[in-house]
């Protein structure tokens, strides 16, 4: 059961990351195309800047949610050198639950706000739901991954980056 959860969350994170990487590649291509069209083809693109901005919003939430599962987000943590296994356990769950609450706020309010607009973007004429929903969608992905992490035993949780207890001891 634990293995299945782990595999599912790892796979989901990988998919998010691959999508985000493709979007980064797209953003770079559009950026270069913008210069090319302006100078070589003398026909400046109007939609490019907006599309790049929205692309990066999606990158932030897709790759950001993958980072949640891998424990890659930067953390400070000043209590890292505590030895007691019980305190470590409590901290572990306190951190995950705090993250879960915020992700749930994003998921709930993000999707409500995302579906609410009916506007289109000024230059590219994209329905604004598409960029807005990145927030809510990212929130949902984070909630899923955090629930997976809560279900896994501590030993199976990927260790947070940024700082290890021994760095501070």
């Amino acid at each position: 059961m634990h293995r299945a959860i782990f595999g599912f969350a790892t796979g989901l994170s990988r998919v998010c990351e691959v999508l985000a990487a493709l979007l980064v590649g797209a953003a770079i291509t559009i950026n270069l195309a913008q210069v090319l069209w302006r100078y070589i083809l003398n026909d400046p693109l109007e939609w490019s800047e907006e599309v790049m901005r929205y692309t990066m919003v999606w990158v932030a939430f897709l790759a950001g949610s993958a980072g949640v599962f891998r424990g890659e987000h930067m953390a400070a943590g000043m209590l890292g050198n505590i030895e007691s296994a019980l305190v470590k356990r409590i901290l572990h769950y306190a951190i995950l639950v705090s993250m879960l609450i915020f992700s749930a706020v994003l998921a709930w309010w993000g999707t409500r706000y995302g579906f609410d607009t009916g506007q289109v973007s000024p230059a590219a004429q994209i329905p604004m739901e598409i960029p807005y929903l990145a927030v809510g969608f990212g929130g949902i992905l984070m909630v899923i991954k955090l629930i997976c992490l809560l279900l896994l035993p501590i030993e199976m949780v990927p260790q947070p980056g940024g700082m290890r207890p021994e760095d501070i001891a």
Partner: protein
Amino acid sequence: MISLGVAFGVLLAIGVPVAFAIGLASVVGILALDLRMVAVPTRMFTGIDSFVLLAAPFYIMAGEVMARSGITRRLIRFSMMITRNVPGGTAYACVVSAIMFSGISGTAVGDAAALGQIFIKEMPKEGYRVDYSAAVVVASSMMGPIIPPSVIMIIFSAVTQVSVIELFAAGVIPGFMLAASIAIVIFIQGLKGVLPRPTFKLEPGEGKRLIVDGLLILTLPVVIIRGASSGIFTTTEAGGIACLYAVLLGVFVFKQLTWRDIWETLIATAQISASIYLVLAASEVMSWVMTRGGITDHVREFGALFGGNKVLFLLGIAVALTLIGTFLEPGPAVILFVPLLMPAVKLLGVDPLQFAMVVILTLTLGLITPPVGVCMFVVCRIANINIWQLFAKTWPFFVAETIVIILLCLVPGFSNWLPYVLKN
């Protein structure tokens, strides 16, 4: 307001990732002030939906490509060649490499990781202590965000409307001042005990090749600054061009970059950008809550403390931000505090570029001071020492870099002379 502060402190202390600690503390603030929760997603979205900020991932990508295409190694050989005849040459080479590498990378962490991988392994072979080698690397990494391009300057520009390219130009002189301050510390330490002589040997014919490679690599920062300050392309476009140039160099000139490397670079760029963007997005929410909670009045009181004296004001800011910077990353610190301070900056007639340099240097210095500093962690992990062992060797550099900040507070010309010249 107080509940927000307490929640933030507690969340950070127990080890909640910075983006989530900032976000959840803002949620607490929203509940306490009875504001609308929908502001969380809306402010997060507007926080990262910015044209200026868009430049950041491109410079991150360019740095990542450079690191994988053998450019780091070439720059380091090039620096070692320059300093090979001086006692302590390899320590100086680290500083020289940091100057050049900072012209490509936009973050201090990027510098610390790239230089640390090599210098922390190579310097002990010549007889340096490991902790000393790590200290030289971490002190040098400070130049990453000061010498353009710079991700933190992009963030600064996004929240203040100060032009990115002027900020980039403003960073050049303070960047070299940092380099000089580090070199002076190494020199003074060299007087006490004899620093090891470099064991660096040029391979036959390597010298000429290194010079050509070095010039090819260093063309990039020059193109970025000249191109963007003359308005040929925007700073964001310059970032895209930097990526393309780095890929072309890696694939066709140095013949080291594979498709697999490029793909891994894209993944790494997505990860690094996302973690920066999320912190910024959450900071935008907190900034909004703090403004609603009336922090502007407190900041005005803080500004009034200095009785209209520009230098005292800047020094005061430097002290306050040093404290803030020890536990908060520069990115969120800039988003949270700079917009609040800008009115005071205008009122006192402080040059925004000088203010920017003082803020950015001070906050970056926080990356190399305990208890929290991401550059320290990176370097400690490579050197396998803890942060207090590292700081025992870092503090002379820390003092020297603090003196640079004080000089920047005193003399506006260090920050605004070059942007002025380039503009005219």
